């Protein structure tokens, strides 16, 4: 392969393995540019994931994990292995049970209980797979958020989206394969969509932020230049590049790759804005996602964009509801009723996304994953009206992508504190998600610093019970 001038078409073909990436060659050095894994380990049941990240920790006992005993024994003082106290003191401490401020009702033919926080999502319970026995690592937001995204509580692991992108490659070479919509800058920030030691082309591309309404990708064009002029400039640079390569009178794969990256950049500059343009949607759709209502607008836009990216072939799309503080959105330590505000912002958009995907036949090949970095305690914190973090038991739900629908897996104890049956560790969830994409979490490895790493560290088991 060396010594032969490569034609650019070949480069462009190879570039399909990563967003605008061009595998230069292994000669560069030990951290050279790698192609993606690209080969499935087994038959895939899904092509992509949309992760609806509820940052801060939704309370399971106020949403999807109905525990009637909390109302009956409200105020009773009982000993619990509170994760925070346990880490600090190694001791079990006593806490007062606290009932949920919300009514629970049964929905669908599966009869799933859902609280009045999520009346719209509740209409879709027959499409959801509830995992009630989740547990994870990290008592504080920072470590737990990193663990959720990267499978480790420290800071140097690739994020799940980058593993997926690396594992599957891109469906659409004009778009990044991993997009994080409005990510939080807190609690690990870019690490949560970074590629760490995976090749840089697999890092997540940020679209928009939690503070700005604009959902755009950085540097996708210049607003101060007419399109015609930009095109002229791109042509000019492409010609210069050719002339400069010719002047060197050598064949150089890296330089060829750079030239091709310019061409890709230009194609992306033309293609991506269309995908990002929500104005192309009908008024009816905008309404369905709640974009006409200030309360639901922000998350509605993000969910609608997720659907568009999904159609355009992005592999991993994260849609964050959160903020940039150290104690993010759903983190109701002192005031659990505030959950209502957050639920009101996301419930309708989520329901619309599920309907939309289903109606377009995309739900079969797309996994929708809803969840937080951890859950919350069934007892009050400091006897106030809030709940503390709880990594020992919480609920996530999944839809589509071969997950069983109208299904419940696992359970927490009678109070909703600790998962006891059908326990699913975050590593297990990661393994199962990868499994549905046709990837074996034990074989999706990357060599770095003399060893091989994987998303699930040395742990994780595929939970076969939750997939059909």
């Amino acid at each position, binding site marked *: 392969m060396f010594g032969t001038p490569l034609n650019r078409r070949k480069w462009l073909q190879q570039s399909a393995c990563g967003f605008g*990436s061009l595998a230069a060659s292994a000669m560069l050095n030990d951290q050279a540019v790698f192609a993606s894994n690209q080969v499935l380990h087994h038959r895939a049941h899904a092509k992509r994931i949309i992760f609806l990240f509820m940052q801060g920790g939704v309370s399971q006992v106020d949403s999807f994990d109905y525990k009637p005993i909390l109302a009956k024994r409200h105020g009773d003082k009982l000993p619990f292995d509170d994760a925070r106290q346990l880490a600090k003191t190694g001791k079990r401490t006593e806490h007062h049970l606290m009932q949920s401020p919300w009514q629970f009702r049964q929905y669908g033919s599966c009869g799933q209980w859902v609280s009045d926080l999520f009346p719209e999502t509740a209409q879709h319970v027959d499409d959801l797979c509830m995992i009630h026995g989740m547990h994870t690592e990290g008592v504080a937001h920072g470590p737990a958020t990193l663990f959720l995204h990267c499978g480790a509580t420290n800071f140097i692991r690739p994020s799940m989206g980058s593993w997926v992108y690396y594992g599957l490659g891109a469906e659409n070479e004009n778009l990044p394969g991993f997009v994080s919509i409005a990510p939080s800058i807190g609690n690990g*920030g870019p690490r949560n969509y970074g590629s760490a030691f995976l090749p840089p082309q697999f890092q997540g591309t940020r679209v928009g932020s939690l503070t700005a309404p604009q959902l755009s990708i950085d540097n996708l064009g210049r607003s101060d230049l007419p399109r015609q002029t930009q095109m002229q*400039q791109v042509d000019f640079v492409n010609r210069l590049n050719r002339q400069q390569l010719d002047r060197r009178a050598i064949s150089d794969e890296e330089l060829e790759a750079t030239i091709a990256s310019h061409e890709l950049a230009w194609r992306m500059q033309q293609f991506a804005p269309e995908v990002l343009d929500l104005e192309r949607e009908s008024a009816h759709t905008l309404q369905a996602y709640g974009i006409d209502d200030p309360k639901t607008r922000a998350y509605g836009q993000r969910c609608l964009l997720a659907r568009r990216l999904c159609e355009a072939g992005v592999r991993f799309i994260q849609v964050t509801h959160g903020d940039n*503080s150290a104690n993010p959105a759903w983190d109701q330590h002192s005031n659990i009723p505030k959950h209502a505000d957050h639920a009101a912002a996301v419930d309708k958009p989520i329901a619309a996304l599920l309907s939309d995907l289903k109606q377009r036949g995309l739900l079969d090949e797309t996994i929708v994953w809803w969840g937080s970095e951890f859950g919350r305690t069934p007892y009050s914190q400091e*006897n106030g009206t809030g709940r503390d973090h709880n990594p020992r038991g919480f609920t996530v739900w999944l839809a589509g992508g071969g997950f069983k629908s109208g299904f419940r897996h696992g359970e927490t104890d009678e109070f909703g504190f600790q998962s006891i049956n059908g326990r699913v560790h975050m590593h297990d969830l990661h393994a199962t998600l990868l499994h549905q994409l046709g990837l074996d979490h034990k074989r999706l490895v990357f060599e770095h610093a003399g060893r091989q790493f994987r998303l699930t560290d040395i742990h994780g088991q595929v939970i076969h019970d939750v997939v059909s």
Partner: protein
Amino acid sequence: MARPKSCLGIGGEPNEFDVDQVKKVIETTNRSDMHKKRANKAFLCSFEPWCYGGRYFLLNCFLAMTFLATPVRSQELRNAQTLVVAEQDSADFFEQHIRPALIEHCYACHAIDTEANGGLVLDSPGGWQAGGESGPVIEAGKPEGSRLLLAMTYQDPDLQMPPDGKLPQEIITAFRDWIAAGAVDPRPEMEPSIAISGLPVDEAEKHWAYRPLLRPRTPAGETASTSLIDKFIDIELAAKGLQGAPPADSGVLIRRLYFDLLGLPPPPEVAALHQLDTETEYLHLVDSLLSSPHFGEHFARKWMDVVRYAESITLRGFVLPEAWRYRDYLVQAYAEDRPFDQMIREQIAGDLLEHSDLRERQMQLVATSFLAMGNNNLEQQDKLQLEMDYLDEQLETIGRAFLGQTLGCARCHDHKFDPIPMRDYYALAGTLRSAVALEHANLSMWIEQPLPLPALQEERFEALNVELQQISVRIDTLNKNQPNLDSKRNKQKYVAIDDLAGTVVDDSQAKLVGHWKDSSSVGPIVGTGYRHDEDSGKGAATATFEPLELAPGWYDVRLSYSAASNRASNVRVVVFSADGQNEVEVNQQQPPDIDGLWKSLGKYRFEDNSQAFVLVSNADSNGHVIVDAVQFLPLNGPSELQFVDTDNNADSEAVDVRAALADELKQLEKRKQQLEAQLEARPRFLTVVEKLPPVDVPIHIRGDVHNLGSPVPRGFLTALRMPEATTKISESSSGRRELAEWLSSEHNPLTARVYANRVWSWLMGQGLVSTPNNLGTTGASPSHPELLDWLAAELIDSGWSTKHLVRLIVCSEAYRRRLLNNSAAEQIDPGNQLYWKGQSRRLSPEAMRDAMLQISGELDMTFGGSLIRAGTKADYDYQHATTRRSIYHPVFRNSLPELFEAFDFADPSVSIGSRSRSTVATQPLSLLNHPWVAARAKSMVGRIRSGDHDPTSQELINSIFEACYARLPSDDELLNCLEFLNASQTDEEVERLELLIHSLFAALDFRYLE
């Protein structure tokens, strides 16, 4: 010393490798035990294939990374007729007939993924070759003796596979034929067997890097070059029948030298005038660049990659305000060619070294910031775990940076590849254990200490300090006397909220949970009355005081209550701030000490969106719990006495006394603030603090901080053969000083090799060992082992002079070669491992940025100092804006400049030996569309236009090319540029010339040196 594990990890340690036991663990449905282990382990290294190998390997299988080919549909298979297996296509036969059947019928239970029933794995050749618990299953060439076939044919009622029904006869026949033909299985194994053979300590020297360093003899033979390096290079070239390319043109070499030694483009006048026709001229240029202070900046940045230099921490984005001093130390050290062995000693144990003058002392102390630069999880609640994680991070970095070893692998078990037993890891850990790096709290904090200063300044600060202490004592005394005055104050009882400073939340505005009774019996009272819990319903009542709005900043948070003897002496009050929550116990029997009104709960930081409230609880309290008000008093503003006397009946004399005291207090508080501000300005540095007596660290079984083995005496890597004097640690010493000596010893076979290889890689684009951070058995082999040893010997003999090595390397012919096409040579050495030609060099983002600023005339060449904007508490969304050299950009782990991110800047959280070299579309997008780049082009237009002379287009283009590429345009380029300029449309706002310069920044020759 622990015995290294045997190659296959089987048989050596029966307990650890008991298959049944392991199976039991895996099959345990209640995984809580595993989970506990996991909780401890998850923070650890996260390991290596053989770590999971540990688990699966035990089941007699290999890890397979078999990427399955598209399965052939079984229908096709069933249609297969006669199956004749020919030698040449036995692999095809496997792919067509065996693998699809295995996938469809066997993998569900017999794959690594599916837990390998009976210990049998069929998804890799190693799996069936090793067999299952009942022994081998396939005997190649002998179908009848193979258990696999026995099971498939359902002849034995106790052994029938697959269990849900016998397979069609043609499949069974296919298997029989396949086994008979030798059972060829083309699937790749996961890892070559090297992955599981650890090198024992006493055989360490089987690996080249652990052998003692001896100066190799220079190869004989004639070379045109005077450089000895070329003798080593040329002999290898000759052996392959290759010849080195001639040197590049003078202009190319000048540009190469400037960027390689200074990280800056040559000034146009140098590029245009300077000719390197003679060797003397070349050497002269090299020497002048080596003596430039900018050499220090450029090489400091290279070392900063290796030491994970950063000025903030990922979690919460905390800024490390003093980290920059360490960067400036490196700039100075490289500029003055400080011996590298001395730099090692200073970075590891600068605080423990002897010193002769103040500047040396400052340098030594600041160098030790190296140990405190890690990106740790300060929120970790298990502080034992945090401390070991911190130590591990230090060891990992020291290992990679100085030794080229992956020490962290030995935290939970003996290193599986390299001769590093777990005991060595904990022996090394002991030498760092006494270096305290954190002060623990909910959020543990790093340590800063005052930097020693010239005597005069020291005296001034000391005087300020003494005065501060005196004033504090006086303030305390005055405050303690207040209660006497309060007995009178009590009479007037009510203090209006409007008369109080800061933000006051009255109990009437608090969120109350549980039973609270209104009262106004005992004063003084803030606002309207107070509430108490009637000393009942303990644990059921809370009051939350949350201000509606609070500007970000630091506050003194104070609680008001009316004291009396029936009050609780143990009221639990929790303050929720940006830094978490903090519980304070308040004794409400004691009158509040500030103005008789307030009890301070401490100083706290609040941010936009952060929690900001105070929660008073009656849980476990032993008397009446009172809630009256909470005050958030900003710390930056003027400190005033808040009490305003509104009591007309008060004794006038007492009022006078009180007024006088109040006045004195006011003055004192003011002075105190001034003093604190002045003391705050004193230089400090990031460091660790030596805390004796020394301790030995016990082995942490499986790396678990709560599962300790016996202590390991402090010491070093036992695999390295070194003089006894270098490995002794005295009883009374922590061993850190000795660690520094051991690392920097000329007898340490790793250190000099690792550093010489780095310097080579910094100049030549790749190391003689292409994995500069790993010279262990899993690292790459050296392309020129003798040259590497020779360079290491040169390094030591020159007194560890970096500049000496640099001079040697850049003066070699190998360095000076031109880019060349030679297809015959390409065939022989496509990767240019032998250095027969020059190679395109990619500029770092720092160099690209500096070059743009220099070309546009905006580069500010000031040295040193912190560039973090005052008041920056967290690095989130930091707006980088400076025209200083890139090295001075704050290295923020949560917000690097975009250009740095796009162009593979080193990850500042881990030691980086060589940066990624990605080629992605975000690079041209940021070059062409980022406003910062456009702004540089605009500035350059301004610069060009400012002269008197009105140049022609061609003159303009020539000078732009000289500035950007240190050369004139080719004819093609000139034509292209002229065309572009002339295609201008009149209504354009952005000048055409600006776009032309901008385009030159984006084109190949700007980013890739010849």
